[in-house]
């Protein structure tokens, strides 16, 4: 069973933090000028692909979720350069990009991301006809619905097992808008919005859940032929990426969840854990291994 993650820049790979993962989505799709963004990093991208391939890992390019017409040309060029660098495929949220890339690169595997808004098996099946081989159904879908999509289409289904969810998109980086200045590199730190007990993180054009999704207590029962798993590590440091990846890699190898590992996951989530969507509940709900709302 595969475990994937995403990194923004070359440093995020060469620190060794991606060791536990089967594949890596390269690039920060929520902000084009993100420092070192592998989406357009030329030589860094080639190094990143080589680094992963030497370790037997897959490398996909992560494309922006809601490009305007003016963005299509540079994204298409970025994918072209990535192909020359040996990329294995592209992660695409936008259906216009699916159309464009499936025509320009009919043999390039495409994975449809969460902002492709795959809510139905009909949509997943439609995308399969456009070269998409894996879909990340929207987070709002339950595990049962995700299984049904996999069974009905034969596609791989990506399940976010740990990390923050990108819940919404803005048309401009929120930090730029809020601070009314040129790129403040605020995303390199942590920028939070709070309202009562609600917390959201802003990073690029996305608003992220304050709580981290966590399915560690459910992994033993999660196995489904179509599922592949993702840890969202954009905006996290290498220590976090490695620690979380190692825990889930052990779970995928069939090891039981050790109490110390669960404690570590909780410690790494300062604003708490959640997985409610997977059980038909609000996104910030956490359902523990006994099926109880914690």
């Amino acid at each position, binding site marked *: 069973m595969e475990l994937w993650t995403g990194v923004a820049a070359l440093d995020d790979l060469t620190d060794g933090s991606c060791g536990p993962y089967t594949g890596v989505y390269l690039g920060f799709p929520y902000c084009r000028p993100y420092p070192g963004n592998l989406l357009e990093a030329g030589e860094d991208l080639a190094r990143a692909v080589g680094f992963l391939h030497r370790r037997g890992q897959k490398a996909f390019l992560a494309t922006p*979720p*809601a*490009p*305007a*017409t*003016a*963005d*299509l040309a540079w994204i298409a060029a970025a994918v072209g350069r990535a192909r020359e660098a040996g990329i294995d495929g592209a992660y695409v949220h*936008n*259906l*216009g*990009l*699916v*159309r*464009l890339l499936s025509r320009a690169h009919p043999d390039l595997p495409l994975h449809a991301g969460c*902002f492709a*808004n795959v*809510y*139905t*098996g*009909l*949509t*997943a*099946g*439609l*995308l399969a006809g456009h070269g998409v081989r894996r879909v990340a159904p*929207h*987070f*709002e879908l339950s595990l049962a*619905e995700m299984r049904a999509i996999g069974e009905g289409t034969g596609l791989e289904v990506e399940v976010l097992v740990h990390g923050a*969810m990108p*819940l*919404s*998109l*803005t*048309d401009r980086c*929120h930090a730029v*808008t*809020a*601070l009314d200045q040129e790129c403040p590199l605020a995303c390199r730190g942590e*920028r*939070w*919005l*709070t*309202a009562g007990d*609600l917390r*959201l993180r*802003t990073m690029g054009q996305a*608003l992220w*859940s304050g709580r981290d999704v966590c399915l560690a207590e459910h992994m033993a029962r999660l196995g489904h032929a179509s599922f592949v798993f993702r840890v969202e590590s954009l905006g996290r440091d290498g220590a976090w990426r490695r620690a979380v990846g190692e825990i889930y890699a052990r779970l995928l190898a069939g090891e039981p969840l050790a109490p110390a590992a669960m404690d570590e996951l909780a410690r790494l989530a300062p604003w708490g854990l959640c997985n*409610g*969507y997977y059980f*038909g*509940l*609000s*996104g*910030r*709900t*956490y359902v523990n291994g006994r099926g109880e*709302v914690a």
Partner: protein
Amino acid sequence: MAALLAPGGSVAAVQAAVAAGADGVYCGFPAASRAEGRGLTRDEVAVCLDIVHRRGRFLHLAANAVPGDTASFRAVLAGFRDLGVDGVILNDPGLIARTVRDFPGWPVYASVGLGVSNREDALFYAALGVRAVVLAPDTAREVLAWPRDPAVGVEVFCDLEVEPLMTGRCALSSYTRPPGEKAASVKRGNPCRQPCRLPWTGAPASGSPFPWRHHTLTDMTPYLRAGVSLFKIQGRRLAPPAVAALVERYRRQLDQARERIANGKE
């Protein structure tokens, strides 16, 4: 010729819209529509169809809630098609493709909730067979630079409360619901709790981090020249007098824009 589409949140609103000069109305149905306002019953839709058709106008069904059971949803759509609804607005790409296939010749429109953000997006839906895509204001402005293409129908809003977060790409409502409650996805037809309106800290001193804004078109002429086929007024929760006032305003504007183009003044 471009049309003016008004919100039909009630039978009275439909009557007011038609009397004020709307070319068409769009109505929701509770089981199939995002609950922006009340939806109409099937009988009310039938009454509205009589109202619009007697005046040579049209009615589109806003079936923009993504169903969990697509098979039974198909039966719902079949019922409205058989009733005489002139077209349907859908919010799921797969459902669009299936509806175009199952009901050949029945116009299908790609909802603004699909978040079409570029021309390739529009072409994607055109290839599925939609009559037109409905665009949010920022993307609608792009249309002015698109090459005219009769295969790509475009509809834009002339009056709209613009959400601060990208249309069709926001799950804040279902995420922020209290722990233990049902998810109640907005995409699936549940009301949006609008958590973006909460008093978020970490915001700029100037106000909310998620400012809403009101979008109005003051000149339809460039959009007409760009080939926009329909101008849409948001507001199925509006009372009939408000609907009538908006229709009158934009009717005047549309007719003036047509006249300018016809007389070569633009």
